């Protein structure tokens, strides 16, 4: 489940950045700044899209936004939320 989600999130990041590099990025790649390079607006678009696709409102639940630490953290969070309806 997490594996599929990791691939889906890499795909989503590639779409948002218009860049193929996220497709091959390791799971521990940071989403902001030095990693994928999303800024605060890019991060917002990502969270909005996650909510739309998976119904997981990260911005309303994870106030510390630890999910944005890495691709893997985001995939694990969404997977855990989908597993506990």
């Amino acid at each position, binding site marked *: 489940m997490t594996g599929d989600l990791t691939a889906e999130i890499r795909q989503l990041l590639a779409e948002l950045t218009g860049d193929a590099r996220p497709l091959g990025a390791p799971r521990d790649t940071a989403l*902001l*700044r030095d990693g994928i*390079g999303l*800024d*605060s*607006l890019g*991060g*917002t678009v990502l*969270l*909005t899209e996650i909510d739309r696709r998976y119904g997981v409102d990260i*911005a*309303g*639940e*994870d*106030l*510390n*936004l*630890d999910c*944005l630490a890495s691709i893997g953290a985001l995939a694990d969070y969404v997977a855990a*939320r989908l597993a506990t309806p």
Partner: protein
Amino acid sequence: MIKCVIWDLDNTLLDGVFLESPDQPPPANPGLAGLLHELGRRGILHAIASRNPPEAGQYAERVTGHSFAATRCDWGTKSAAIHAIMAELGLTADSVAFTDDDPMERAEVSFSLPDILVLAPEDMSAAAGWPQFSPAVVTDEARRRGELYRQRRVRQEEARAFGGSRDEFLLHSQTRVAIGPAAADDLPRLHELSVRTHQFNSTGTSISEAELAGLLVSSAHEVLAVRLADMFGDDGLVGGCVLATGSSWQVPLLMMSCRALGRGVIDAFLTWICRGARQAGAAHVALPCLISPRNVPLRIALTGAGFRVDGVPGQDAAPDAGASRIAVYTRDLAKPLPELPSWVAQ
């Protein structure tokens, strides 16, 4: 409050169809061209979304004598064009109006973007009298808004062509940020920012000039103003905050114009506040923040700057929908702080 009107061209801003008479394209609709100028004086931006070749946009600028903050002339849907314009200008749907003579286009936009105010061209002149189109305060920054967004367009084009990192581009473009105590002259603009900012606003409520004036003379408070300029233009006062200083610093209000988005200003401002607090001997900085879908960009900036919320309620304790929640974001100043970028005036 409407910040931008997005116009269709054929049989709306133009009295005819652009491609039907290539030798002599139709003139501007005089009533609507007048409205462009009137709304522009109130600080409202204009943009074009039209199913036409790109030269239609340039033609419309010539024939109306007005420069548009963003132009999308292509063959996609109007809602896609509006999405792109909102992203380019950093606008949310509820601050945008769209006008088109074609009821099908209006329906398509209303369906995909329900928060947008959709109007027929014949209703535009009455709408201009509505409160959404009539800001109470029109500051110098507001009057220059159209010009500032044109500078922004040039800056974005240059940034795309630049190739280096964002920080390198900020240096290259001679970015200058000045942060300091607000003066009495700054209060109308700070009030306006408290009304207009959403994506970078910690409280979601406005603060009056009188309240700000009271804080300015309070010995327990500071009001800060942030100014931004670069080689493309001077954006003037783009942000500010209220500080309650003491053994720990509180930030009851922090706000930043979306015009400063992507230019490193919010990160620099948070660093500036934290370094100032540490220098004054404070142990931490606490910033109460409304938890709203609208200010996610601010919350991403806060967590990126090392602010944390303690005692986050569990997922099963999610509050009722619609209830406003405030969480206190705290920065422990014992932990390392980033350096201020060189382009921030000390």
